[in-house]
C-alpha cells in the first residue's frame, strides 16, 4: 500500500452497555447501580421525573426555583454550611431542572459516596425553604433573567418555544419570567416540593468504582425514611401541534449577526421512528459535514456553525435549525435552510451520503460510554423516558437497518418547512427587508423575560 493511500477505518469492536443492578426501596425509590472501575471515582444522580413542564399556569419558574432552594439550607445546615460540606468532600451538588425532569448530581472520589449521599438525602428530604433564602434566591433569579434578556441566543430560544408550544407545558423557559416569579410565594415553593418530590417519581443512579450489590442496602439507610407521598402526575400532555408559520423578528439594534431558530414541534423520545430520525438529522444538520453546515459555513462562510437537532422530550419535542449568521446574509441563510429542509423531503438521500452518516453514528457510538458521567447520563435517559435496558445496545443495529426509503419517509413526516416558525434576533433595520423577500408575514416580536 502506498504511503499516500488513506488507511481504512477498520472494524470497530462492538460494545455493550454495562449491566444495571436494580433494587427498589420499600418507599418506592428506584436504586440503580452500574460498576465502572476505570478510576476511583463515582457519580450519583437523583432523578425526579418532574420538571419545568410541571410549573402551574401563572407560576412559570416554580420547579426551577424550588430546585434551586433545596440546597439553600437543609437539615442542620444553612446554605453556606451545605456548600462547605460538599466542598469538604471534594465535590459539589449540581441541580438541573429541565422540562421533564429534575436531576441532582454529585461526582467525586468513590470513598466519599456515603457522606455525599447523606447530604443529598438532606437536600431532597429535609430542605428548609426559609423566607430569607427564598427572597434572596428569587432576587438572584430576577437579576439572572434581566441578564439573559440581553443574550441573543436566549432571546431566540424563548421566542421559539413560546411560538411552538404556546400555553402548553413546554412553552416557557425553566426560569419563568419576572412577572411569574413575582407571583410565586414561598408557600408555592413549599407546596411544589411537597407535591412533586418523593421516592415514587425518583430514581437514584450510582455509577463508578463501587460495589453495586451493596448500594441498595446502603441507600436504604439514607433515603429509606423518605415519606412515600402521592406523587402528582406530570402535567405535560401531547400538545396540539397547530403550526405557527410566522417570521418573528426580534429587534437587536446594531447586532452584527442574526440569531436564527427555524423549525416546528417534533416527536417524543418514544417515537418508533427514532433511529430513522437520528440518521436523517446526521445527514441534514447533526454533524460538521451535514448539509446545512456545509452550505452556510464551508461554502459561504457566513456563520461559525449551523446545526439541526431533534430535542426529544417525554410527550413531544422540537425539530430546529440553530445558527447565527452575519447580518447581511440573514435572508439568504433562512432561504438556504428552508431549501435544505425541502430538498431532504423531495429527493431520497444518495446511498453514499446515507452510508457515511450511518457509519459516523454507529462506529462512533462507543465514544458515548467512556466515563462514569456519560454512563450516568445515559442511565438517566432510560429512567426519565421509561426506556428498555437494551436501548443502547439496539442503537447500532437499529441505525444499520435504516434504509433510504425510511429516511425519506421520516423526512416527509417530521420535517415540514411549510409549517416552520422562523425566529430572527437581529438588527431590524438590516434584517427586515431581507426577510420580507421570503414571502411570509414578518412580525416584530419580543420574548417575555
Amino acid at each position, binding site marked *: 500500500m502506498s*504511503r*499516500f*493511500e*488513506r*488507511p*481504512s*477505518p*477498520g*472494524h*470497530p*469492536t462492538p*460494545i455493550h452497555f454495562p449491566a444495571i443492578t436494580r433494587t427498589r426501596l420499600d418507599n418506592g425509590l428506584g436504586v440503580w447501580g452500574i460498576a465502572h472501575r*476505570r*478510576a*476511583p*471515582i463515582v457519580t450519583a444522580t437523583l432523578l425526579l421525573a418532574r420538571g419545568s413542564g410541571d410549573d402551574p399556569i401563572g407560576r412559570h419558574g416554580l420547579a426551577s426555583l424550588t430546585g434551586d432552594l433545596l440546597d439553600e439550607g437543609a437539615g442542620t445546615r444553612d446554605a*453556606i454550611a451545605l456548600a*462547605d460540606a460538599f*466542598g*469538604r*468532600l*471534594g*465535590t*459539589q451538588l449540581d441541580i438541573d431542572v429541565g422540562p421533564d425532569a429534575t436531576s441532582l448530581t454529585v461526582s467525586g*472520589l468513590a470513598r466519599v459516596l456515603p457522606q455525599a449521599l447523606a447530604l443529598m438525602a438532606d437536600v431532597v428530604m429535609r430542605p428548609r425553604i426559609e423566607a430569607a433564602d427564598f427572597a*434572596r434566591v428569587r*432576587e*438572584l433569579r430576577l*437579576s439572572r433573567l434581566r*441578564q439573559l434578556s*440581553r*443574550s441573543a441566543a436566549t432571546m431566540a430560544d424563548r421566542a421559539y418555544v413560546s411560538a411552538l408550544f404556546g400555553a402548553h407545558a413546554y412553552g416557557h423557559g425553566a426560569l419563568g419570567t419576572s412577572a411569574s416569579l413575582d407571583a410565586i410565594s414561598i408557600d408555592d415553593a413549599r407546596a411544589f416540593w411537597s407535591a412533586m418530590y418523593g421516592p415514587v417519581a425518583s430514581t437514584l443512579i450510582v455509577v463508578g468504582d463501587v460495589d453495586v450489590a451493596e448500594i441498595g442496602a446502603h441507600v436504604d439507610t439514607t433515603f429509606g425514611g423518605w415519606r412515600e407521598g402521592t406523587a402528582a402526575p406530570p402535567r405535560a400532555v401531547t400538545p396540539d401541534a397547530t403550526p405557527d408559520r410566522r417570521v418573528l423578528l426580534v429587534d*437587536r439594534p*446594531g*447586532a*452584527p*449577526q442574526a*440569531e436564527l431558530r427555524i423549525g416546528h414541534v417534533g416527536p417524543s423520545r418514544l417515537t418508533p421512528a427514532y433511529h430513522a430520525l437520528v440518521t436523517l438529522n446526521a445527514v441534514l444538520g447533526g*454533524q*460538521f*459535514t451535514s448539509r446545512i453546515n456545509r452550505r452556510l*459555513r*464551508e461554502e459561504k*462562510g*457566513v*456563520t*461559525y456553525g449551523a446545526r439541526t437537532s431533534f430535542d426529544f422530550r417525554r410527550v413531544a419535542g422540537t425539530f430546529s435549525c440553530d445558527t*447565527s449568521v*452575519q447580518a447581511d446574509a440573514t435572508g439568504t441563510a433562512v432561504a438556504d435552510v428552508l431549501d435544505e429542509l425541502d430538498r431532504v423531503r423531495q429527493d431520497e438521500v444518495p446511498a453514499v451520503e446515507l452510508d*457515511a452518516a450511518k*457509519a*459516523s453514528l454507529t*462506529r*462512533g*457510538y*462507543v*465514544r458515548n460510554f*467512556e*466515563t*462514569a458521567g456519560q454512563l450516568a447520563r445515559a442511565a438517566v435517559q432510560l429512567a426519565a423516558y421509561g426506556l428498555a435496558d437494551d436501548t443502547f445496545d439496539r442503537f447500532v443495529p437499529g441505525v444499520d437497518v435504516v434504509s433510504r426509503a425510511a429516511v425519506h419517509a421520516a423526512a416527509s413526516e417530521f420535517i415540514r418547512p411549510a409549517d416552520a416558525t422562523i425566529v430572527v434576533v437581529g438588527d431590524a433595520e438590516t434584517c427586515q427587508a431581507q426577510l420580507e423577500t421570503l414571502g411570509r408575514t414578518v412580525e416584530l416580536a419580543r420574548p417575555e423575560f
Partner: protein
Amino acid sequence: MISVPFTKATLANGLDVIVHEDHDAPLAAISVWYHVGSKNEREGLTGLAHLFEHLMFEGSEHQPDGYFGPLQEAGASLNGSTSTDRTNYWELVPTSATRLALWMEADRLGWLLPALSQDRLDTQRGVVLNERRQSYENRPYGLAQFAIMDALFPASHPYHWPTIGEPADLAAATLDDVRAFFTRYYHPGNASLAIAGDVKTDEVLRHVEALFGSIPAGEPVRPIDTPSIVARSQRFVMEDRVELPRLYLAWPTPGLFEPGDAELDLVADLIANGRTSRLYSRLIHDRRIATELAGGQTSRELAGTFQIIASAAPGHTLDELEAAIYEEIDRFAQDGPTTDELDRSRVQAESAFAFRVESLGGFGGKADQLNAYNIYLESPDSFQTDLDRYINASGDALRSQAGRWLDRRVAVALAVVPQGTSGDPLRDAARLDRQAV
C-alpha cells in the same frame, strides 16, 4: 499516586511521540500540539495562528477535500483550538481507526500547502469573522477580556492582542502570510504527538515512524523576547448591551508552573470561586450587593493574569463592590486561609485530578495533558508533580502570594455598564470606546 505511564520517543526529525496504553475501552485518542499560538504573531497580523488552525481542517495534498468527512465516517470526534501559547488538534476514534487518524495528522503536517487555495482562505476568513461576532461582539460583556488584556500587557507584548485577532488584520492576511506561518511553525521539531488508549506501544511507534518519519525537520523556533510587565493602576468604563453593571479587577501574575502560580489558583478559589468562597458569602449571601461572581488565575506560558469579576445587584454600585472586594483581599493577605479552608482546597484538588485522568481524548483528556506537560515541562507524566503543587501549598504561601500580587494600587479595573449609563459608574475611570477595543 496519580500516574499516567507512557513511552516517549523522539524521531530523527525532532517529533516527540508519547504513547500511553489504557485498554478499558476500545478507543484511542490522538492529540497533536504545535508550540505556536497568538504569542508568535506580530502587530498587523494578529489572528493568524487561529485562522491557520481553521485551514488545517480544509485539506492536504493526499486528503484534499477536508478532514471531517473521513474521520467522522470512521466514528471519530475531532476538533482543534488555538490559545496564546499553543495550537492543538485531536481525534477520539474507535481503536481500529487509529492508523487512519495518524495518517491524517501526518498528511497535514507534511503536505498541507499543495491543498491551500485563495478560496479556502477567503471562506475561512469569513467563518472566523463570524466566530468573532458570535463569541465576542454579539455576546454580553464579550469584549471585556479584550480590553483587560490590552490594559495588562504593553503593546509590544503578544498577550496585548486577542487570539481571535483584529478584524482588519484578518481581512488583510494573504496566502503568502499563511504559507510563511506554516513553514516557520508547523514542523516536527515544534510539535508533540500523543496517543492514549487501546493501542500497542510498539505497533503505534512503528506506524508513527512510517507516517511522520520522512517529514523534513524545520528551523527551531526560538523563545520570544517579551518586554517586562509593570503592573499599574488603570481604570476604564465601557458600555455594552447588558442589564447589570459588572466590575473586572485584573492583575498580571506569575505564568504557568512558575512559583506562585498554584498558590494564586487556590487563592482565587478561596476568595472568589463558587459558593464556598469568601466573597460569595459576603457579597451575594450576606450583603446581597452582587448577583454574579467569578475569579481565577489564568496561567499562560509567558505570564499569568488574576481576575475577580462581580456584577452589581440592582440598586448597588461598582464602587461598593470594589471596596468590599479589596477588603476581603486585604484580610486574606493579612491572615491567610483558615486550616479548614486549606483542608477543603486539598481534597478538592485531589478530586479534580482524579477526574482529569478519566477520559482519554478531547480537550483536557489524557492525550491532551500528556502533550501539555511535555511541551511546558518536558515531562509528559507530570500529573502527581502538578497535584503536589496544590497539596503542598502552605497557608503562609497563599497569604504572601495574595499580598504580593493582588495590590489594589496597581489593579486594572474595568466597568462594563448598560448603554446610556451616565455619570461615573466607577470612580476615577476613563470612558473606553467599544469600537476601539
